Each structure stands twice: as C-alpha cells, then as structure tokens.
C-alpha cells in the first residue's frame, strides 16, 4: 500500500503545453508520477498525486510549469501564522520536527 492520494482538486499545478518542448525533465524529477509524455509533449495525468514540491517548475528549461510550491506541513503553516511569515517548518536548529 504505497499509493497514497491526498485531497482532491487542491493543487496549484499548471502546465502550459504550448510552451512545453517535450524534454521530459518534469517526468524525471517528479516523485509522484504526475506527468506523462504524449505526442512529444508533457501532460498532467495524475494531478491529485502532486505534492507541490516545485521540482518540475524550477527544472523546466522553458518555464512551462507553474506551481505555488511549499511544504505540506501543518506545523509549518501554524509557525507561519504565528511568526507572520511564509509557512516554514522548524527543522533547522535543535527543535527539529517535521522532516
């Protein structure tokens, strides 16, 4: 049992197929098999598997992918609210927790 799926239809992942040059880099870096190459272009085939890590977007040489990336960590979001900043887990320093 390894194919966990999180909430449906929540992720911010977008792929501009027009811009895509079919290099396949997004397939290589995605840890959850979200993309597939079809007809020389990448396509999103498993949207709900996306965890918004952002690897595909920063490794896309033609900037065809957008995702608002971040860590899906409740403690991080709470920290962000308490410190009035972006969500950040406190894994650095001695109080390491979420990863």
């Amino acid at each position: 049992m390894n194919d966990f799926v999180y909430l449906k239809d929540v992720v911010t992942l977008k792929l501009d197929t027009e811009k895509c040059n079919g290099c396949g880099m997004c397939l290589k870096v995605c840890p959850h098999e979200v993309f597939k190459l079809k007809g020389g272009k990448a396509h999103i085939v498993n949207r709900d598997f996306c965890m918004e890590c952002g690897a595909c977007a920063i490794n896309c040489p033609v900037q065809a992918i957008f995702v608002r990336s971040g860590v899906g960590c409740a403690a991080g979001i709470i920290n962000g609210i308490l410190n009035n900043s972006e969500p950040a887990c406190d894994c650095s320093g001695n109080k390491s927790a979420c990863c």
Partner: protein
Amino acid sequence: MKRSKNIESDHPHYVQGYIHTRIGNIPRVYEKLTRKDLLGTVMVRWSINRGNYRVKPGLYAIGNPTELSDVFVTANYKLSFDHLRKNLERLDAWILVLDTKGINVWCAAGKGTFSTSELVNRIRVTRLEELITHRRVIVPQLGAVGISAHQVKKLTETVAPGHLITQASLPVVKGVNISPFGLKTNNGFNVVYGPVKALHIKDFIINKYVATREMRKVTFTFTERARLIPVDFLYGKYKLLIAFAIVFILSGLSKSGISFQLAVDRGLSAMLCVFFAYVAGIVITPLALPYLPGRSFALKGFITGAVVYILLMIISNPGRNYYEMISWFLIISGISSFVAMNFTGSSTYTSLSGVRKEMKVAVPLQIAFSTIGLILFVIAKII
C-alpha cells in the same frame, strides 16, 4: 594512546586517510558504517543531537577515485552522508557534500539550502572542475526541489572562477550563453538526477545512469512511517506536559473548591486519557494511515481518537457522569485529530494547498472540541 580533542575533530572517525590529488589532500571515508555511526543514527531517530548531526561540507573520496570517477552530491546531515557512503561500497567515487545546515536533502531543498547557488558555489570553492575531467554531477532526485539543472549548467559555464553567486542574483535563463556574470569560461556542469534512494545507486549505474520508474517514486511504507514516530512523538512533548498539567489541576476541582489530594487521586487517570489521545494521533494514526478512512489527516486522527475513546470506555469508564463522558470524547478526539494533522509534515505526499484546506475546516473544530470538552469537564466536577 590518548588523542587530544583537537585531532579528533580534525579527523572524524569516518575518515580513514587522505588521497593526494592535484588540488590537495581529500579525505577518504570508510564505506562500512561503524558502531559509532549506527549509534548516532539511533540517537537522531530519537531526537538526540539531531540539530547538530553534521559533516563538514566539501569533497570526500570513496575507494580510489580518479579524474574520471563519478561525483555524488549530498547534504551535510550525517545520516544522509552515511546512507550515501554505505551504498557506494566497492565503488570509486567522489562525494560532494553541500552545506545544508545539517538538514537532509529533501527538506533542505525545500528550505533553499540544498540549492542551485550552493551547488555552484561548492563546485567553485572545492575546485571540483580541476579535480575531474568530466562535467557530470549526480544529484539525488529529491534535490531537484532546490536545484535547477539547466541553471547549474549555465552558471558553471559563465560565472568567472572565484566569483560566488547568491540565490537572489540568479538570472532568469532564456537560452542565451551570456549571463550577467560574464562570458563563457568553460564547459558547464551537467546535473544528472539519480534515484530517490541511495540504495538504488548501483542499479542506477548498471542502468546507464537512467533512473527507472521504480527509482523515481517516493514511497511511504509502514517501516518508513514507523521510523519517523519517535521524533514526531517527542516533538510535542512540551505541549503534552502542559495538557497533563491542565487536566491534573482541573481534576482537583469539586463542589467545595480545589483540592490537591483530589487532583492526585483523579488526575492520574485523566493524564492517562490525554496520553492515549496523543498516542492515537502520533503513533496509531501514522501506522494505520492507509487503512483509515478519509483523506484528510485531521479526519483520520479524529477517527483513531474516537476508537481509542470507545476502547477506554469499555476497559474502564473514565467519566463519573454524562458530562465527563462527553467531555472525554471531545478532548480525546480533538487532541488526536490535531496531533495527527501535524503528521502531514512528515508524510511524503501532502501538498501545501491541501494542508491549508484541511486546516481551515479542522482547526476551528479542534479548538471547539477541546474548549467545550474542558468546560464540560469542569462542569462535571463542580455539579
């Protein structure tokens, strides 16, 4: 023989000697882990010394590498480094350790310390380009969250030697060969993404440096989840102690005021209930994760909490009257739900948007459950 502390720190226990190269001496590390490494692993898994479990960033050698040998990039969290060298046994290779402040590859990549700029600068300061004749570095796939392969290529071919970059100064690369840093100076480095797990490195090499579908996928098996529990359990220890203190004090309440003796008599079982709620959220929920209904962690935690409550009711009813029985249901399921929700950060598949969405619904409910639960608990004591 007595070794001074200084020599010890200059020469860590995992270094077996030095290799003389054209750019100087490079420490050669053991590929077999010793008892000391294993003890360190057990300790960090229990949160001991976890914030300071580091190796010095820079270059290391495994076996007898040459100018043609592979370069494997990793983080300076010692657990990451140990995993890598153990899996490079009987190979001749270089290890390039980035400064990630002692954080593992995936998390450091998410935080921006395992990054394009750190990799480019580390290649610079270690003079890797003078050590090897090829231009390929193998980065663990999860490092791709922080590293942009095409930018590494561009920056290592255009940034003048001795010139360090910052993440903020990274240019937007648009397929031109000139960056704001200067003209093309040499051949840039090619980032090749290796398998997610160091365990698959040898298969990856046999497969001609192509990661198969299986090597690219992140899993979250029972063992992987179980391994995270001690750290997660200890993460909330102060909050748990505060909760203990609250139910202990409230247990001392009665019609005639507050009594320490009463708190001692009844507080212990109340503290146990809180403890079981915590265990439901941070031990049972992660272990039973795929078998629990629902997708949101808060819901899964609520269900485990409810089940634990029912079991507690069957074994020994913790409530003396209906108010207290209801109060325990609210408190136990509320705590379990909140604690389980925090396990999203340890999981390998939750997204920021998803966690935000579940929190919007769950957190108000969790607050309501615990508040109403505590009020009923107090009412139960003073009526």
